[in-house]
């Protein structure tokens, strides 16, 4: 009975999808609406209007910055959600010992410690070069976040003494939304609409600086959030 139901659901989904997708313009065709529509302007004028050679970053941080703000809020919502679900009352002192302690091999610990600075530089570079080459705030932030997770495993600290002390951590987690608030309101004051950039060729440096602030905010915020997600799940 259950199999029949599952099969019916699958058929109800698959058949319309196949039929519909068959009628779409062929992928890879440069004349299809996906390329001649809105995106044509991004490709044509993107570098001049946004100052970003990486058009994807230009779209993310300039043309469709509000969506990126929504994305930053969603990842923060994930942190709030996980904390709301997993936080427990005042930590019992014995619970840390109850957690299984898996011995970290000294080879692993050494390798991680050795490569950590390079990973950190790589992550920061990805964030900073986001508007010139493939990269960006969230990508670099994930790399830094993964590094922080590795370090917190190796250096053996838990929620009691986290890698990033608690007061700083709370503000760092909000770095993404804060960066958007600062840049957005600045844009409102300068150029008249929320999340806009000052127009004109003279403001090139200002635009680049605003984008950098956003990238750093997203990157640092994501890294802090990923570390905290890991610590919450590892928890007591």
């Amino acid at each position, binding site marked *: 009975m259950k199999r029949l139901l599952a099969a019916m659901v699958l058929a109800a989904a698959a058949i319309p999808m196949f039929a519909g997708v068959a009628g779409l313009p062929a992928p890879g065709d440069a004349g299809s609406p996906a*390329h001649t529509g809105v995106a044509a302007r991004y490709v044509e004028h993107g570098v001049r209007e946004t100052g970003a050679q990486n058009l994807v970053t230009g779209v993310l941080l300039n043309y469709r910055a509000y969506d990126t703000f929504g994305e930053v809020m969603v990842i923060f919502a994930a942190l709030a959600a996980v904390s709301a679900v997993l936080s427990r009352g005042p930590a019992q002192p014995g619970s840390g010992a109850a957690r299984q302690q898996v011995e970290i091999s000294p080879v692993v610990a050494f390798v991680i410690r050795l490569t950590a600075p390079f990973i950190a530089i790589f992550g920061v570079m990805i964030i900073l070069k986001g508007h010139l080459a493939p990269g960006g705030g969230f990508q670099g932030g994930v790399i830094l976040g993964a590094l922080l997770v590795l370090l917190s495993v190796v250096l053996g600290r838990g929620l009691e003494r986290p890698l990033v002390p608690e007061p700083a951590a709370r503000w760092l*987690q909000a770095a993404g939304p804060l960066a958007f608030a600062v840049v957005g309101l600045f844009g409102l004051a300068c150029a008249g609409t*929320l999340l806009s950039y000052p127009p004109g060729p003279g403001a090139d440096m200002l635009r680049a600086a605003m984008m950098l602030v956003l990238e750093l905010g997203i990157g640092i915020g994501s890294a802090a959030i990923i570390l905290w997600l890991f610590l919450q799940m590892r928890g007591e």
Partner: protein
Amino acid sequence: MSAWLPLAAFVPLVAGALTSALARRRPRLAQGWALAAAAWTLLAATVLTRRLFLEGPFSYAMGGWAAPWGIELRFDAWSAASLFIALIMLAVLVYSGPYARDEIESRRLPWYYSLLLLNLGGMVGFACAGDLFNLFVFMELVSVSSYALVAVGGGRIAALAAFKYLLAGAVSSALVLFCIGVLHALTGSLNMADVALRLAEIDSRGPVVLALAGLSAGFMLKAALFPLHLWLPDAHAAAPCPVSAVLSALVVKIGIIGLLRTHAVFAGVEGLPMAAFGQVLAWLGALAIVAGALFALFQDDIKLMLAYSTVSNIGYIVLGLGLANHAAMTGAGIHVLNHAIIKATLFLAAGAIIHQTGSRTLRELRGVGRMMPWSALAVSIGALSIAGLPPTAGFLGKWYIALGAFAAGQPGFAAVLLLGALLIFAYYIRILNAFYFRAPIDDNMRSVREAPLPMLLPILFLAALCILGGLFGRWPVALVAPAVERLAGGG
């Protein structure tokens, strides 16, 4: 250009992100901060709604890029729902003061308020969205915060209910995103108005029908339309009571607004089986009305009863949308707003009773009407409203939908409406009977006192709105009518 529109969603979201950082030293600050942000949002929504009345629908181009190259925010009659969203959320936040202190662990408290603010900002952003992908992002924001809010109170039932809710919601979100991708591949644009224009010029039918069907299915799942409602009763019943109010009154309506926006995008395309689609919606709505009411009738747990009642009322709204004539859609629009107020009243009042007595079943709550007169009065008013008795808010929506059923030449639906109202009346009579006319089953009931003032004030305020909404019914009608004009013109 006045910046009220973008800031209406921007401010509560940023405030929600800062809640935990600010409340670290002093957790009491979290509620005050949340109240301030919600009050600000209410102010913004009022300013925007007033401008809507004076000028008609208006837009805002985010980042200074005109649509379709940038993201357009659009405030029209359906966006005015943000007024009710902010109002109910404010009431819930006031109510949460004593409730959350008792029911939610202190470490989770700042996150609870943070999630409520994110939910508020997400809903307001969703209502004002003029861009398909922006709609999706805010829908996800509302969804993620809702899943977590179900489980924030702790306990196994809540965690299981939240997980089921998450799976259902994530499937519908994936489907919606897929259809947005299809629409983008077809038209090259993401702006709703632009897509609607370009769709009308396309030849191939298949993908368009797929996109319409997929978007509708996704939003129907979010709105818990029968038979896709299975996730709702457990989620709404297991959540903490203020959260249940938010979920049943507001979050479920996101699916309805999504359906409306979808309809608006596809309205101009010829050759789509819109009439048949409307019929399907109407039948599903009718089934939901009866099924929801029947399930509710057999529940002993008061929150499960209210949750199934939500399923039933969504049926009313979708029936009105499916009938697709002027009167029915007006009724549907009004019922979206009125049901929000009524369901919020009911869940908050029932929550106060549960909080004070510790019991959730009708059997154990016998005689509580004498011990908690105000809360029980609010439940009574809510019950009368939801059954649709004339001077209350619930009557108007159902009346218009019934008129619409006759106008569409399908009086059978009006009969279903009547049947649903009778069934609802029957189970609310059960509640009132238990509260007022039965003796308590044990002595614990005698020591029960009325709910504290911060909980009582929002309950009574919302109950008063239930009655006022019925007496001054012209206002919601005036609000909804212009939007319905534009929609019902194309059927």
